[in-house]
């Protein structure tokens, strides 16, 4: 059982403690309490089901950060065959916060890359808690271009609190590295399937997040700013993170409703960390299905649809503008169509 318990999982922990007692009692007294044990196990499952079916956005953020949650390498190990890791940006360094390489998923060749968190202090220091440096994004782009040259589809897994905000990051132009990835991912003539598997932290997540299909695990989140950052700005106090998490509409369900992701992959009851095997199997199924759906598309149509997908994101109103009355005659009639009226656009991606 997980050695780490989230605050809202306390009822489960208490029941598990009782179950342990019951078992010890049964062993020491040699009394058959099998029926009680079975009922207790049912009760634990029921409690977990109840808690996990009604998680608040802030609780989901905590699940997405669970220290036992499967990370990119865990999925690579469970989903792929023959993964060969490719290192370095050929400019400055190899960034362990982004891993990438070639592999096969159900016999299909892919370039797989993702942000990588550490499991303990040592590995966390190595991969910087999943916060990539510019060289990480440049490595990602190098591998994606490599894949594009040989027609290999691309799969990216996102799990990062954000790109690393530090002096070295700025000196080597983290903003430019992300921006170039955004631009170049529109130019890749191969299918790209993106999946948010844990934390989708802002620009650092989007830096490998432009694709033809955007998937997200049930308890993962994807947000423009962390709830803590938002709370610090709006309420001047991180204690308001739960309210910020509500306001930001960052859960998988919210994003699906808003048309910003294409598919939510259900997690096992109790979250991905309770059954990494099952989670990986579901993730693999979703990735393969989406890759197959994209595989027959001609490159031009694929890139055009990718552009249209992101082009349609945004919600705004448009009111007709009266023709300008400058001193000079207008060069041509105003282009704003008069019939737009109060046109609130919120197009779902055209697929």
């Amino acid at each position, binding site marked *: 059982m997980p050695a780490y318990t989230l605050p809202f999982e306390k009822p489960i922990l208490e029941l598990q403690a009782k179950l342990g007692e019951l078992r010890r009692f049964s062993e020491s007294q040699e009394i058959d309490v099998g029926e009680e044990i079975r009922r207790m196990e049912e009760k634990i499952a029921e409690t977990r089901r109840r808690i996990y079916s009604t998680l608040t956005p802030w609780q989901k953020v905590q699940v997405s950060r669970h220290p036992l949650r499967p990370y990119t390498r865990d999925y690579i190990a469970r989903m792929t065959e023959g993964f060969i890791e490719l290192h370095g940006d050929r400019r400055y360094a190899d960034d362990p916060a982004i891993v990438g390489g070639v592999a096969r998923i159900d016999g299909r060749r892919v370039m797989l890359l993702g942000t990588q968190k550490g499991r303990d202090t040592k590995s966390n220091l190595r991969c910087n808690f999943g916060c990539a440096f510019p060289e990480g994004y440049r490595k990602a782009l190098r591998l994606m*271009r490599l894949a594009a040259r040989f027609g290999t589809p691309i799969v990216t897994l996102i799990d990062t609190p954000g*790109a690393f*905000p*530090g*002096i070295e*990051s*700025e000196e*080597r*132009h*983290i*903003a430019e590295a*992300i*921006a*170039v990835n*955004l*631009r*170049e991912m*529109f*130019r890749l003539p191969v299918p790209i399937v993106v999946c948010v598997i844990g934390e989708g932290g*802002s*620009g650092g997540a*989007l*830096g490998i*997040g*432009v694709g033809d299909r955007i998937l997200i695990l049930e308890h993962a989140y*994807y*947000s*423009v*700013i962390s709830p803590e950052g*938002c709370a610090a*700005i*709006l*309420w001047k106090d991180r204690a308001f993170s739960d*309210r*910020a998490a509500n*306001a*930001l*509409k*960052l859960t998988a369900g919210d*994003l699906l409703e*808003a048309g*910003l992701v294409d598919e939510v992959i259900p997690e096992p009851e109790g979250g991905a960390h309770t059954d990494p095997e099952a989670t990986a199997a579901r993730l693999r199924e979703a990735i393969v299905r989406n890759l197959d759906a994209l595989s027959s598309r001609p490159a031009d149509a694929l890139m055009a649809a990718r*552009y249209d997908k*992101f*082009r349609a*994101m*945004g*919600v*705004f*109103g*448009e*009111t007709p*503008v009266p023709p300008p009355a400058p001193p*000079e005659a*207008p*060069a041509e009639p105003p*282009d*704003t169509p008069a019939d*737009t009226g109060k046109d609130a656009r*919120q197009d779902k991606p055209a697929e």
Partner: protein
Amino acid sequence: MTLFGKRSQYSTVRVRKRDMPDGLWVKCPGCSDILYRQELDEALGVCRKCGHHFPLGRAERIAQLAEAGAFEEWDAGLRSMDPLGFTGTASYTSKLESHARRCGYPDAIACGRARIGPHAVGLGVMDFRFLGASMGSVVGEKVARLIERSTAERMPVVMCCASGGARMYEGMFSLMQMAKTSGAVARHGDAGLPYLTVLTDPTTAGVMASFASLGDVILAEPGALIGFAGPRVIRETTQQELPQGFQRSEFLLEHGLIDCVVPRSRLKATLVELLTCLVPDNPARAGAAPAAG
């Protein structure tokens, strides 16, 4: 108020707001000198003493760069909505309203066709006074439309950037504007057209990590704060002492991001010269050239 009743023996001179639109006198953050507003405006918003570049509003910027009467605004009817129903300490809608009232325009960017010297360009001008020129759906859409229409009309684009980043109040809709605008830049570049960005104080976060960083030529005004994370966030996260001049234009010039730091007095002439040298004589041929990474 009775508490301060004794003070009434001193006379208070109240200047009515319309007599003093933006304050008759301004204190320079660079040298602490007190500057006469009219003189400052005549000097393009640059302190004559220390060269500090004050942020410019959109009207001032357009007047400084475009030929008189040669700016035709596009998509002025776009209005921000409140897709998340965001309420923090104040609602997003009320913030939009108060900023629109104070600034006199509905969002943080003006886009349109302009003539800069002899060149017809698509011109975008961000205005930091409107919600920190944060990028929500309207800013993203206007940038994308500006670049797309300039591509269709075969015009270069000049983008004057200033921004605190993505607009938190629109959540993930804001973040996705980064992708949307960068995609538009890709297509403009594929058409063989130059895209020039001018980074002004401050240009950070989501805007810097998208269309602001993607200029074929990146200019910056002197002393502008330019970066991904803000200095305070970096200090708090890393507990590091920040180097002298960190994240300022000159620092980024030295570190290889920016092509040149251009004082405001030379900005227009520099843009005209760059456009003269970069706008292809035969756009069709330039468009056929392989896109550079």
